[in-house]
């Protein structure tokens, strides 16, 4: 069948009819279209090698290879559409799924991902990322925030304060993302808001990735004395983690207002409290 499409007054998201993966985002207010795909990948955690015995662990992120493995090249999808929400449910594997969601009036695409328990029977520790790939000419630059306030420009394989001899092409380009990461070609900006701090990077022009989960088999010899194995609700089952990435597509001029206001709505989201009616007792303190 044709491409899956979900949209509201402001945004349209198009999914590849063959793979079920995100294919394009369109900002209908600004007439902006960005072909962008998104999927999940995993890095094989290093257990140390001849160049360096350093393993990936609680303190250290060190993938064994620079190229992550895709979880899958296509997903099972399920479309939910009604007046109050449009969603595409994507099933990547038994331990990875995602709901791409649009509510009326919303100016961002909500990606609610659920990852885990990460399988380790193959003997590989895994570091799971969500990666967005586009054609934006970003010239080796990307931007991450520091505690939601200051935005810092990052340049691949470069440090502003010393001559970097890059020995870790992946980990050496990962930075802390407190609440947002974005890439831009100077006109168009693709921003991803996170609902918790994550590691993130842009390892190729037009690409942006965030690490959502890790499950490792070795200690990194930095003092913890334990692998980051995170047994879930029972020895060895592994944690299931659920979170959300909010994706905004804007011009460079309008992007800051968009992500700053949305990030504030997320950080100070309304508190929902329920009550069983009929138990009301008039109450006027003092």
């Amino acid at each position, binding site marked *: 069948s044709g491409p899956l499409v979900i949209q509201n007054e402001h945004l349209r998201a198009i999914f590849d009819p063959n793979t*079920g993966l995100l294919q394009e985002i369109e900002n209908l207010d600004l007439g902006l279209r960005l072909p962008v795909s998104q999927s999940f990948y995993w890095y094989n955690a290093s257990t140390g090698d001849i160049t360096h015995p350093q393993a990936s662990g609680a303190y250290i992120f060190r993938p064994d290879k620079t190229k992550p493995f895709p979880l899958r090249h296509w997903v099972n999808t399920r479309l939910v559409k*009604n007046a109050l929400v449009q969603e595409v449910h994507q099933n990547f594997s038994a331990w990875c799924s995602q709901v791409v969601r649009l509510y009326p009036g919303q100016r961002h695409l909500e990606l609610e991902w659920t990852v885990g328990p990460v399988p380790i029977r193959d003997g590989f520790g895994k570091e799971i990322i969500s990666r967005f790939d586009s054609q934006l000419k970003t010239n080796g630059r990307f931007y991450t925030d520091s505690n939601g306030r200051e935005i810092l420009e990052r340049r691949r394989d470069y440090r502003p304060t010393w001559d970097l001899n890059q020995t870790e092409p992946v980990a050496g380009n990962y930075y802390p993302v407190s609440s947002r990461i974005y890439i831009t070609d100077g006109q168009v900006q693709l921003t991803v808001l996170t609902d918790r701090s994550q590691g993130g990077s842009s390892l190729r022009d037009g690409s942006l990735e965030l690490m959502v989960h890790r499950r490792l088999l070795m200690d990194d010899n930095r003092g913890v004395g334990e692998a980051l194995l995170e047994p879930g609700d029972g020895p060895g089952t592994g944690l299931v983690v659920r979170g959300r990435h909010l994706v905004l597509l804007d011009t460079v001029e309008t992007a800051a207002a968009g992500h700053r206001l949305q990030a504030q709505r997320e950080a100070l989201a309304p508190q929902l409290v329920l009550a069983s009616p009929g138990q*009301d007792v008039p109450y006027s303190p003092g």
Partner: protein
Amino acid sequence: QGSSARLRQAMAVAQHHDAVSGTSKQHVANDYARQLAAGWEECQVLVSNALASLGSSKKDFVFCNQLNISVCPLSQTANHFQAILYNPLAWTITWTVRLPVGAWAYNVRDPSGQSVPSEVIDIPAKGSENSHPELIFPASAPPLGFSIYSVTRLSVRTPQFRDCCSPPMAQS
């Protein structure tokens, strides 16, 4: 009597880099979570007292801390409940409320008694074939204030809405 002191203490302990970045043994990480959960527990009493005082009526307030995995015993079993939305921002917000429920049709009324459009969609439960209904409705709350929505289950047998399932992707 609620108090935020315990949460403040737990947050203070969690300033250690081990809590911020997860560089601790598992049992230490579990203890950070335990302290934060205990702190939040006491804050729920504080928030309930504040809502009772602001709303001039004591209610049996219920906090559902597992809405992110669609678990909320009250909304999943009650025929009638209230949803109170407190807005900490200094401007009015609109928000889509999602609640796991136990039936396929509900009537939602806003603070002025007007009906609010609502839908019930079925959400696939992780790792199992069965799914469960989730109520969705748009809500708004005033700056630094709250709104109370009233939710009533309708005795309608068949699901009001079944999602259209796209044909399964090519299995090749």
